[in-house]
């Protein structure tokens, strides 16, 4: 399965990196380093993206139309004007919701099979 196809067919699993990047952009527009920090925090330090992996993944997400670049910088930020900001597209919101539903179904199946993690 190619990476492009992964985003082309809703319901197919996202990679953990792509999932956390989409999750970080769910509520607001962010620039690269902000995404990186948000991913690290949301994954409790499990996913420590480097700049290279962040932008190779962002490139795929942009090409798939899941993420879009924001033309105007949010006014609250007074940082470097060269920073590029990204946000989820409508399709990105749909794909993220589909991924969460897929995870929920997997969890239901795991619980039914009594595969709950030990405390």
């Amino acid at each position: 399965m190619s990476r492009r196809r992964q985003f082309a067919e809703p319901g197919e699993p996202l990679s953990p990196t792509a999932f956390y990047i989409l999750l970080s952009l769910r509520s607001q527009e962010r620039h690269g380093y902000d995404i990186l920090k948000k991913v690290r925090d949301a994954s409790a330090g499990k996913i420590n993206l480097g700049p290279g992996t962040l932008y190779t993944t962002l490139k795929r997400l942009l090409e798939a139309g899941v993420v879009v670049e924001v033309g105007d910088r949010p006014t609250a930020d007074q940082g470097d004007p060269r920073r590029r900001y990204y946000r989820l597209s409508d399709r990105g919101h749909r794909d993220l919701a589909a991924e969460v539903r897929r995870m929920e179904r997997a969890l239901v199946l795991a619980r039914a099979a009594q595969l709950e993690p030990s405390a």
Partner: protein
Amino acid sequence: MYRLLVRLYPREFRVRYGPDIEQVFQDMIQDHEIPTLLTWLSVSRDLPHSLIQEHLVNLRGRRIVMRGIHAPEPGSAIAGLVVGLGIMLFWLAGRGFHLGRLVEGTPWTADVLLLLPCALFVIAGFIGTRRTRNFIGGVWAGVIAAVVSLLIIPGDSLVFHRSVGSLFAGVIIVMTSGALALLFSGMGALLAGKTTRRSAL
């Protein structure tokens, strides 16, 4: 230093995202919550992985796919066979017409005889990749050409009554032939990727 490393990404990716990657790295360095050593450790893990990934994506973009090692496709086999036979015939003709002796005593003696086989390996890699649309297809063509061209050894023995000399010399010849085949057919395969992309544009 990191700026230099970023230059290793494919050109298109570097032009589009290079400044952003450098900016994020700068942010990481300036973030006092993360020790600098940890930042470099993170980058040293991240850089090789993302470099390879982006170069592979770039090769796919050139419509040349790295599908993994598998049995050679007919396109590779035919290209390898033709080029291998060409190398063998060239070598034996060189012996027959004393090509080595013509340039003996000049610095070109060995180079002249080696240049054409190397060029033919490049051609094998090029044709193999173009016919199979697969980088590995080009390398396969080179390997097959190398194996076929090893017919030089029995050919030398049968036609010119020359033997390799020893088992060790034979092993060296086989290994050199294999290394030249991999190197030059790989170059041919990469060249095929570049020209395919240009023609696609």
